[in-house]
């Protein structure tokens, strides 16, 4: 039996949303798994661009400069 265009669209919607959810669910699972593995493997993720003291020093310098 010939499907109408609208029926085709309806199926496409169901399949499409399903695929989007399945895809993103697997991605969530993958990301969580990766986070767990990474946390276990690397002892401590170091990523400090600037220490607090450095930031304080820079801020103080800027303030002083402005107030001159």
């Amino acid at each position, binding site marked *: 039996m010939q499907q*109408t*265009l*609208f029926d*085709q*669209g*309806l199926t*496409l*919607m169901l*399949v*499409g*949303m399903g*695929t*989007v*959810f*399945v*895809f*993103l*669910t*697997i*991605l*969530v699972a*993958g*990301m*969580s798994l*990766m*986070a767990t593995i*990474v946390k276990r493997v*690397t002892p401590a*993720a170091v*990523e400090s661009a600037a220490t607090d003291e450095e930031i304080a020093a820079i801020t103080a310098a800027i303030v002083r400069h402005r107030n001159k």
Partner: protein
Amino acid sequence: MEMIEQIWTGSGLYQITGGQLGMLVVCLTLLYLGIVKKFEPLLLVTIGFGGLLSNIPGAGIAEPGGLLFLAYEVGIKSGAFPLIIFMGVGALTDFGPLLANPRTLFLGAAAQFGIFATLLGALALTELGWMDFTLREAAAIGIIGGADGPTAIYVAGQLAPNLLGAIAVAAYSYMALVPLIQPPIMKALTTEKERRIEMVQLREVSAVERIMFPLMLLLLVGLLLPTAAPLLGMLAFGNLMRECGVVERLSNTTQNALINIVTIFLGLAVGSKLSADQFLVLDTLGILVLGMVAFGIGTASGLLMGKLMNRLSTSPINPLIGAAGVSAVPMAARVANKVGLEANPHNFLLMHAMGPNVAGVIGSAVAAGIMIMFAS
């Protein structure tokens, strides 16, 4: 005298058609929106000017041999320009907030309902006999609901080049209208109490996770949905260049010179499709209305998913960030932040909303892959 006549018959004044005149007005409106209203100026200014150039009668800039025709053939028909833009977007995007809270991907998934609802709407209008869209055209129109310019242009270029002008204009216009379209829907679908919810600060994300993410994304899309692989692959490539830390000079150029050059020619090329016989038709009106509906539905489904997740989750989730799932990066995330602050002045949702915001980009690309697979 003969020469003067030749000038006269060669002039735009003599040759211009009502349709071209109408398109000049449309394009000036796009420029007005871009320049004065600051609606997505990078695209609306270039598209609008491209449209002006293309509607000059007798100049042939958008016809074979003309510069904009060339740009269209080389860059859009081949899909190259939107893919390069996607690479640039990847290089510009920080997936950190998403990595810190992967669950927000579900919000980005839910918001794609706008895409498919619009597809259905376009087909319903056709069944009713009000419009006449094919499945391919309906699919391309639906992608407007993804609120992603390059995705919409890529899909339209593949499935419905005749509608490309209208679809690109609708996509960028509505992305700019996000601050007007979304807040009423957000307030209607959430309670004051929900909007006040504060979220737990995001954890730091390690460099390793940032590097692995684009690779994982690429492998997943490659294994599950290859038709979405060009879009998501280029996004992943741009992001890998950004995060891997060893090709900074390539990443910088991608984020600046390359994406800017391609944006200019992408905009001009899209403008070359703003011809009266393709734009000044009833279809365009349908596309504009459907695009608006798509945004609304996408926003609503993102919000409802947010409410659901808040109920099911142990850590609190403010449903407002679900609205950011339509993408329109970073506008939608800013809107979520603003509406949240109105309800609770200590409620900074921006970083939390960036998760679903970039998830929406991925979600739309997945939806685009589905559309290309079934509609083409």
